[in-house]
């Protein structure tokens, strides 16, 4: 019973953190909220018997991603907060129909998803074994993605040298 309450609390906090990330007026706070969301996801992953993914989530999402965002924020002009608020209001007025639409999409999913939930107990198939036997093509994909990311950094971040033709 206690376990369930802890889990419910974590879920609620997860949603609240996401809302905070969205509602924060200062960009920096939004990024912090995003990191906090990540931390909660990490905790939830631990609860779901997935320690390796949790570690990844913590290190990459809460760590690396926040760092990238902070870099982006420092490298760009600070926002004009009043203008942000005005334009946000204007856009919210224009896209008033979106939340119901999205919720409809979500509910449509829930409707079919919920009736037949299988309740098999957690069986332990080892993630390392899975990764190296049946999903090693994905690992190859990961390597390629990382190489592509490296080129992204080279092409997009590096300043063009002035004397280059």
């Amino acid at each position: 019973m206690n376990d369930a309450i802890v889990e419910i609390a974590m879920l609620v906090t997860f949603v609240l953190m996401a809302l905070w990330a969205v509602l924060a007026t200062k960009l920096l706070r939004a990024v912090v909220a995003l990191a906090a969301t990540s931390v909660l996801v990490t905790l939830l992953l631990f609860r779901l018997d997935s320690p390796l993914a949790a570690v990844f989530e913590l290190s990459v999402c809460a760590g690396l991603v926040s760092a990238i965002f902070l870099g982006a924020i420092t490298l760009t002009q600070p926002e004009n907060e009043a203008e942000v608020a005005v334009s946000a209001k204007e856009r919210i007025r224009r896209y008033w129909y979106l939340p119901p639409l999205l919720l409809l999409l979500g509910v449509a999913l829930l409707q079919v998803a919920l009736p037949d939930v299988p309740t098999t107990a957690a069986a332990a198939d080892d993630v390392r074994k899975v990764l190296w036997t049946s999903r090693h093509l994905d690992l190859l994909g990961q390597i390629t993605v990382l190489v592509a990311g490296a080129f992204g950094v080279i092409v997009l971040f590096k300043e063009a040298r002035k004397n280059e033709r």
Partner: protein
Amino acid sequence: MLTLFVLVPLLVLLLLNISWRALPRIVPQAAVLVLGFADVVFGLALPTLPVNSEIPVLSELHFGLVADDLTRVFLVSIGLVICAAAFVNQESMTTERAHRNFCSLLLVSLIGMNGAVLLSDFFSLYVFLEVTAIASFILIAIERGIFAVEGAFRYLLLSAVAAMFMLTGVGLMVFTIGDTTFSAVHESLTIANGSPLLLKMAVGIFIIGLFIKGGLVPFHGWLPGAYSSAPPGVSVLLAGIVTKVSGIYALVRIAQDVLVSDPSLSMILLVAGSASIVVGAIAAIGQSDLKRMLAYSSISQVGYIVIALGAGTELGIVAATFHLFNHAIFKSLLFVDSASVESRLGTTDMGKMGGIGAKMPWTGTTTGIAMLSAAGIPPFSGFWSKLLIVLALWKAGREGFAILAVVASVLTLGYFMVMQHRAFFGKPSTQLDSVKEASAGYVVPAVVFALITVLTGVFFPLLKDSPLSFLLLNKGLSW
């Protein structure tokens, strides 16, 4: 053996970047061309090769890749278009650095596409499509202009939405059957235990992602911007093959191997396909920019492919695949030609090109061939694939859609005539006096592609006994 399609480019990519300052410019270019050509050759020769024999050193790394006729069609197309893109890029890239990066990213794209057409798992498909997509985002913005950044960013956002749908689909698959391979999903769908409806939903949601990646109406918002703002070589790559592999290949694969002749899937494909055909063609008619018009025409042509899949029959799949091959050829050809015009005039605005055909005869002629092929005029290959599409729809009892496909090809003819009229026919204006035919880097791929279009069209009845017979996916026809 199939592993090499992914491993060799990856190895070459890494080797090229260990000491690239020392390498002359020609080396990465040659590497791309050789690997692209290897795709074509091995794609053609695949059945004669010991596909399933494991290479001793790599025996630990058999990735469960499989190849059939559909894969071969795509390997050949990928190879051809990659080579063309490399040629065009060689001519159009100005800086050394951009050129090297371009070649490397072309290889990344090649790895992604080769992997995507060889694998047989939904999640791996997502991963490799994302590899291709990331390479495309960077490639579009490689010259760092503001329009290109806008095109790339829009592509990135919509692609992220597509990924969201694909992953939701994968999640539902894991949730229902705990497996994501094509065969497992297909089996669970056919034996109908557990929850086939949810599983079908999962595949359906995955397909929504593919619609976005393939640029079908109304999921196409990113496509015109990305095509028209990209550098010439990248447009060839994107229009010729990337969107086809990332969106349409997977649709064909699913229609062939997973959701076989499912009526609700058919309906979705038919509706999305006909919307794309009509909206794409109508939007293309009013364009004044050549590349943008070609982009909308791509949407329309992709609609034909999808509508053929919607027939839900084997003939439909054959027609779709053949049209896909033809489209890869003639659309790359059109973008190569637009690149050669751009190289001479510095613009793709059709209003400024009147009569360019007389000044650039090769470009003008090959454009005409590609255009007639796209409109389905014999003896070019496009005629046969459109005919097969109409027949497939008719045979499947979708007469209305067959008629729509036929009538819309008048629109196709219409916008291409507008283009020919504005850009290539008529009296050359005096400002164009000094314009000469484009350099060999553009003309050679254009002529090769035009020849492929003509020869495939003329010798289509003889395809059966030729090495190209796989274009018709033999098992799909009562040959």
